[in-house]
């Protein structure tokens, strides 16, 4: 009991001790930044796994750990789409998850964002052409932000979320 407290006080804050992210392959669009305006100080995320291999989930999990600590930016991960501002969809949309994805999208209160996380969600990745896959996320619901990678590193996801929180989009784009 007290050992835990002593250990965490001795360890100190470890947040931020991770290698810097590479520049995202696809810049965040100006429309997405505009759409994310109400969520600059507080963003709630719901993870929707539509048939992913769980690699993207593990990277999302890492976001909540002490090193990446996504909560310091006011980002929460919620248990219900009703509490959510942004749906993070991972994996190609499989036949069985197509309806669940659409339901989750419908139950998310407006205004809302959809983030396609990982190559599978963007273009089906290695599962392209499979009989169990009905296509990328975009075919079913409108996607605002794409984060490429197989899987994307937590630092890259953080960088994109940081981009969404920017006060004004970079003028060179």
């Amino acid at each position: 009991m007290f050992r835990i407290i002593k250990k965490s006080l001795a360890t100190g804050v470890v947040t931020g001790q991770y290698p810097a992210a590479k520049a995202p392959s696809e810049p965040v669009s100006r429309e997405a930044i505009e759409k994310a305006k109400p969520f600059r100080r507080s963003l709630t995320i719901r993870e929707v796994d539509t048939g992913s291999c769980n690699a993207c989930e593990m990277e999302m999990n890492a976001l909540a750990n002490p090193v990446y600590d996504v909560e310091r930016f006011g980002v929460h991960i919620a248990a219900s789409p009703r509490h959510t501002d942004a749906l993070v969809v991972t994996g190609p949309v499989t036949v069985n998850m197509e309806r669940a994805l659409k339901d989750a999208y419908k139950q998310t209160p407006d205004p809302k964002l959809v983030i396609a996380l990982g190559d599978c969600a963007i273009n089906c990745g290695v599962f392209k052409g499979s009989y169990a896959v009905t296509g990328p996320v975009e075919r079913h619901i409108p996607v605002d932000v794409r984060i490429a990678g197989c899987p994307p590193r937590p630092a890259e996801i953080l960088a994109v979320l940081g981009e969404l929180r920017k006060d004004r989009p970079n003028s060179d784009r």
Partner: protein
Amino acid sequence: MYAMVQLVLIVVQFVMLLALAPFIVGVIRKVKARLQCRRGAGLLQPYADLAKLFRKQPVRSSTTSWIFTAAPYIVFASTVAAGLLMPVFLSHTPLNFAGNIIALVYLLALGTFFLILAGLDAGSAFGGMGSSREAIVATLAEPAMMLSILAIALTAGSTNLSTIVHQSALLEGVVLAPPAHLMALAAMFIVTLAETGRVPVDNPATHLELTMIHEAMLLEYSGRYLALMEWAAGIKLLVFLTLIVNVFAPWGIATSVAPLALVTGTAVYVVKVAGLAVVIGVIESMFAKLRLFRVPELLGAAFILALLALVFFYTLRG
């Protein structure tokens, strides 16, 4: 003039409860983040969360009735009303005449009742599960809470909160019956953890529906309804903390409406409540959540402590 002052005091207390509740939630989260070696969100994050939720368009299930939409308002109003009945920074509450400590307990129970109904209303499995668990916890916590309050009321000779607080504040730290007070304090603290859904009983940060109690009843809510529910939960926590702070350690509270006394009373109150929030944050980091079937044992212990407080009061009276 007198009526004006009283009115201003009511408004100040109302605004203070509403404004301070998210801050207390933020303090607990920050302490927990630090003890998890994280930097954590800022202390003002809960305000940003509430502001965002109020701007969102709520979604309603087609299977819900009027209870679903009315419940957030009833829960919020009953919790705030309970908060107005108790002394916060001034030992003489203007709304003192409206009800004593028993009215306060049952105003909070009214909110819990409607929260339970709201969890059942949408007919989802998790909501019903959360409601049944909340009902168990609430029914077990209530006798312990009433008994510990009774022990305090007996030592003060009144069930009126303002009288209790005013008397012990004037004593300047001298407690009339220390063993009874300590036992009642311990019982009250356990009840606070149970009623406000803190760690040994419920985990407010959980994402796993199977372990939820309070959160499971809120799964169906969105937008401003969710904001009201979360704000009400924060105010309920603040009401319990205020009750502990002012009944068991009322030193520094303003005993008259002199400006200087009011300012120091407010400052001392905020410091005391924030300190108690830090204690709760540390407790949440130290303990694991209890298995649901062991919660009755914890609340049973609270009940026994409260009963002992009563026994001590009668045996040690001399």
